[in-house]
């Protein structure tokens, strides 16, 4: 049971949601946007998330959009992960989100909720970072569409009261060769030791990570090293991991040393899959 009370509002447009948020803030309240709400409920139960008002955005049409139009895939932020997975319009995204939580939970967890969540894995963002996806954000001064990479620093950095409404990926990214793997310490369900997604565009490999550090990330310097084909794969990987953000995660899933060991081998798998060569694991 959630040990505190909050007001509940259901918005039918993004403008209504944003206005409601501003109004509540002016009243000194602490509102949150509510899509799947799984973190608000589970972390709220332990008082790790607190709110005085939830604004349900599932009734906002643009947040439920899923369509290919004008050479771009438009994905509403309030879409449940299973809906995206089953539609399979972006296979790399489908495969990556199919490993998040479990199937029933994915009926509730939403794309935008996973991206903006407190639990730091946020694996749905990984394919979007390497596919140059745009985000549509509604705020008090209207809507803006900008590259996700331009506002992503460990998480989407939104202004107070801004609402992520859509993610838009150009269709020429949807069919690119890709690789996605989630390595767990054990079992088939649960948090990752590491998750790595990669795709190849114009002969260059792009790669993004979760579980390695306390936030998901993409690093152009890592990609430069991995794509330096003058070197052999092991040397490329050794150089690449010098550019990992610090510190490497150290928790019950694995030590930093173990994570790096698994990461090196996983990067070899990435190169093998996307370069079409066979590389030996050391």
């Amino acid at each position, binding site marked *: 049971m959630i040990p505190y*009370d909050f007001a509940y509002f259901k918005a039918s447009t993004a403008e209504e949601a944003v206005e409601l948020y501003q109004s509540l803030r002016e009243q000194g309240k602490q509102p949150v946007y509510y899509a799947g709400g799984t973190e608000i409920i589970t972390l709220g139960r332990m008082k790790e998330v607190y709110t005085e008002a939830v604004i349900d955005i599932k009734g906002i049409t643009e947040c439920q959009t899923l369509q290919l139009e004008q050479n771009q895939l438009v994905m509403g932020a309030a879409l449940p992960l*299973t809906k995206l997975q089953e539609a399979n319009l972006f296979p790399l995204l489908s495969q990556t989100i199919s490993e998040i939580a*479990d*199937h*029933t939970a994915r*009926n509730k967890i939403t794309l935008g909720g996973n991206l903006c969540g407190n639990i730091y894995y946020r694996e749905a963002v990984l394919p979007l970072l390497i596919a140059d996806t745009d985000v549509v954000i509604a705020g008090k001064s209207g809507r803006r569409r900008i590259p996700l990479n331009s506002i992503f620093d460990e998480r989407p950095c939104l202004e107070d009261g801004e609402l992520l409404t859509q993610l838009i990926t150009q269709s020429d990214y949807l069919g690119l060769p890709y690789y996605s793997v989630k390595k767990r310490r054990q079992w088939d369900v649960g948090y990752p030791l590491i998750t790595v997604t990669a795709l190849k565009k114009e002969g260059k490999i792009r790669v993004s990570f979760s579980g390695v550090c306390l936030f998901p990330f993409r690093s152009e310097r890592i990609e430069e090293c991995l794509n330096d084909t003058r070197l052999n794969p092991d040397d490329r990987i050794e150089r690449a991991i010098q550019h990992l953000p610090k510190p490497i995660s150290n928790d019950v899933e694995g030590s930093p040393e173990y994570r790096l060991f698994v990461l090196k081998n996983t990067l070899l798998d990435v190169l093998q899959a996307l370069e079409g060569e066979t590389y030996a694991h050391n």
Partner: protein
Amino acid sequence: MHTTEITLEVNGETRSVTVRNADTLLYVLRDKLGLTGAKPGCLNGDCGTCTIDVDGNPMKSCLMLAVEVQEAKITTVEGLKYSSLQTEFVDKFAFQCGYCTPGFIMNANALIKQYPHANDMLIKEWLESNICRCTGYKEIEEAVKSALATAQTVLRQQ
């Protein structure tokens, strides 16, 4: 206290109830509506024992607020009323302590309705959402596969 009077359609019946906005659907079903088939387990979305059907999809009722499902059709295990799937669970001894059984049944029931020709991979993907602490997974798998076979036979005869 922030409360809302809501109307829910549960097992084909319309039920009105006043809830705290912060109440989970699991709590309201059990403590306000007397439907104790959905079980409280982890209360954290991990174990699946509180699984119910919302508009044809399995959902963990501990991960839902009651106020957010006012326009949905909800089915709990009480609403199945001696389905063939339940019979298969009995016939295949697909339970030991039985605590996880309603959750498994509601998840598998939605699977059979959505994908009557589900293959092993799909069955595994769906049923991974539920935990059986007695580890009766083999018998549960047999019960679900048997119910799927029955559903396929019915479809062929239609």
